[in-house]
């Protein structure tokens, strides 16, 4: 999901639905919006026994 960061593109925190022909990468690169899916870090688990 793309979330709004800058008030110049909408209400911060709300989902951003890019209008047709919007250069979304430019908005991501310069921090106007953020891709929340890309921000999540992978959770790692281990089965190794503790010493």
């Amino acid at each position, binding site marked *: 999901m793309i979330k709004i960061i800058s*008030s110049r593109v909408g209400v911060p925190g709300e989902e951003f639905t890019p209008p047709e022909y*919007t*250069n979304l990468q*430019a908005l991501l690169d*310069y*921090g106007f919006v953020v891709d929340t899916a890309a921000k999540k870090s992978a959770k790692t688990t281990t089965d190794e026994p503790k010493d």
Partner: protein
Amino acid sequence: MATSTYLSNPALTINAVNLTDQCTSATITSVAQAQNSSAFGSLDSFFVTGMTMNTFECELFMSYAASETYATLAALVGTQTTITISPTAAGLATPTATAPKFTLANTYLESLPLINATLGELSSITLSFQGGTLTTATS
């Protein structure tokens, strides 16, 4: 005396970014390029419409702060983007017959002045977008 006038105060977005508070002039133009269809037998010139050439020109104060002019435009050079503009801020959100919203989609930005500085003056830049498809919304 004109019975109805309009004090320039439009609102606009460039690539979905509202830069109204940085803009000091804006012109959107649609030109139906004239093709000369005159032929032998006539002493007058006649024209028919050729391709449509839409352009958008604006002047913006330059700012290198986050979410401002440079951040909006830097990645757009050499690409196509979308411009929206309305005579009023309200028309940008909710267009009406008396406050239409013009959308220029797939318009091309050829160049961006990276620095335009003069001693003692606020830095501003002039942009020229070329081509694209123009639509007008009134509702």
